[in-house]
């Protein structure tokens, strides 16, 4: 199929189920999902709301643990780790991008991006330098000291991406990153993610919009807690890169 299949696995989940108890009823959010994502892949997880894609995302993001099944992330079995060990995993291996940006209000872009490094115990000067570098990478080198309220939605989401990148993660998880953006900013966002993918970053994108999913090389369709379809595209849709990124990407 694709050379990606031959790549070493970064994410490997086997027969994962997740059952929630809501009152007296058991809700089966995942009913046995097996999935392998190789290093450097750009995969989109698609599904309607209630399909289980958010649960899958939470498990991939080490925010939740599967009820049964195994999860290897970067070679480590994480499905039975305790809260602190999962936090360590999130701190070292993962980067998150959320639909609603989730930046800290009244806090500068630079400090928002620094946040993950605060919990690694890195020296403040080094932290600052890495945060600045990450913001420059997403084209916000001129907006280091702006507060979220002074930035557009697209810019805020780019700050969030810088925050996800700053700890040099192995995997970026983007949960509906374009959900709160207009179409223009959405395309910019996809261009940025594609650029990161081209640079070798492994990205898992969760969305319910086929237009957005079409930018990924692999589309995984989740329905009723199971993977219904797993398709590879040789030529994903290319989002047009805004001038700013071309400039940044240029040597």
């Amino acid at each position, binding site marked *: 199929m694709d050379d990606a299949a031959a790549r070493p696995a970064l994410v490997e989940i086997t027969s994962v189920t997740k059952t929630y108890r809501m009152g007296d009823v058991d809700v089966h959010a995942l009913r046995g999902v097996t999935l392998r994502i190789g290093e450097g892949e750009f995969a989109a997880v698609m599904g309607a709301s209630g399909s289980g894609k958010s649960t899958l995302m*939470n498990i991939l*993001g080490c*925010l*939740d643990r599967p009820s049964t099944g195994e999860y290897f992330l970067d070679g480590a079995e994480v499905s039975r780790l305790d*809260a*602190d060990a999962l*936090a*360590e995993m*999130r*701190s*070292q291996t993962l980067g*998150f991008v*959320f639909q609603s940006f*989730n*930046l*800290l209000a*009244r806090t500068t872009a630079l400090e928002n991006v620094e*946040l*993950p490094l*605060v*919990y*690694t*115990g890195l020296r*403040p000067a080094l932290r600052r330098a890495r945060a600045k570098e990450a913001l420059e990478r997403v084209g916000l080198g001129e907006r280091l000291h702006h507060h979220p309220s002074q930035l557009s939605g697209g810019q805020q989401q780019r700050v969030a991406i810088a*925050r996800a990148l700053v*700890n040099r993660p192995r995997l970026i998880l983007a949960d509906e990153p374009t959900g709160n953006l207009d179409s223009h900013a959405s395309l910019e966002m996809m261009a940025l993610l594609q650029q990161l993918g081209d640079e070798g970053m492994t990205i898992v994108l969760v969305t319910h919009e086929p237009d957005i999913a079409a930018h990924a090389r692999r589309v995984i369709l989740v329905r009723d807690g199971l993977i219904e379809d797993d398709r590879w595209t040789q030529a994903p849709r290319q989002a047009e890169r805004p001038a700013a990124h071309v400039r940044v990407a240029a040597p």
Partner: protein
Amino acid sequence: MRVGDVVRVAGRALLRNKLRSFLTALGIIIGVAAVIAMVAIGEGARARVEQAFASMGTNVLIVSSGAKTAGGAKAGAGTLPTLTWDDLRAIKSDVADVKFVAPRVHTTGQVVAEDRNWLTVIDGTTPEFFEIRNWPMRLGPGLTPEQADSGAKVVVLGQTVAERLFGANSDPTGQIVRIQNVPFQVAGVAERKGQSAGGGDYDDVVFVPVTTFLAKIQGGLQKFIPGTIMIEVDSDEQTTAIADKVAALLRDRHGIAIGGEDDFSIKNLTETASRKEESTQALTMLLASIAAVSLLVGGIGIMNIMLVSVTERTREIGVRVAVGAKRRHILLQFLAEALALSLAGGLMGVALGLLAAERLAVRFGWPMLIRPEVIALAVGFSAAVGIGFGLYPARKASRLDPIMALRYE
């Protein structure tokens, strides 16, 4: 997570809601200020009592005659003369560790100088009296033992009397004053002693030799002392033991059988002083514990606002957890906030308390007494309140489910 980060995050969170932070800390501010002011009041009162007793003389026993009984009604100590001059001499010679013994008889009378006169207390005593009361002369030699024995017509004036009769800055030594038409030569003016605990003026008094007193001012039975015997013992610890010895001696001399009632009474000033001190100490404790309750209320205020803060910042907590914060990081952050609130409140409370204590000291005219331990205790207690009441909200924050927290609106 670095200490600097914890402090910075806590400080920023508190400064973001300045008014709210201040109002929350106000409970602690008032609590700590109250503790400090109340303890200062208690200490001031205690110092005042101590001062009062020190001016009466320390290690002092006062022996009074018995009480007259008329139709079953006791007339009070000293109304029935039972103490004799021989008793006084016996105490002097037979009881060990007695430093000074002096008789004291007194009446009130008009003291007349050339053109002024003054109604005052006239004391008849011996020079030892001034030793017992720690009462030196300001001017003149004072009473001598010879004068006391020989019945010389000399008088020592209290400062108030000297001022009334001769003016504020005069030296009346050698002048003549008349007491009941008997001329007395002024042998000295006693140092100013000030106010008594009861509000009286210690310096509104004159002293004459006890022999002269009995011969010229107020006659009495030859054998009995129409007043009291004052005894100073060597040290504090001995007062009670000496009091017992004096009592035993007097019972023996007065021929009182075992089980019989004393025909005299002994007042132990040291004991009275320490009892008074105990009662003011109890007052201090009472005031301080009332103030401590307000500290507790302040702590509850902190807990309340921290719980609100945790709820408001649920999403922030979710983000922090998602980017790698561990439970203890979140716990530490909120604990640091509660601690910062209570410590800041504590320090402001100390400032306010000191100010209040100073005002009170000026108002009541007692020394401002604030022991550093009290300040340390108040600040320490407020910090403990912060940690104690901050722990529950902080734990709650650290146990939030990140998935729920991220979705929280």
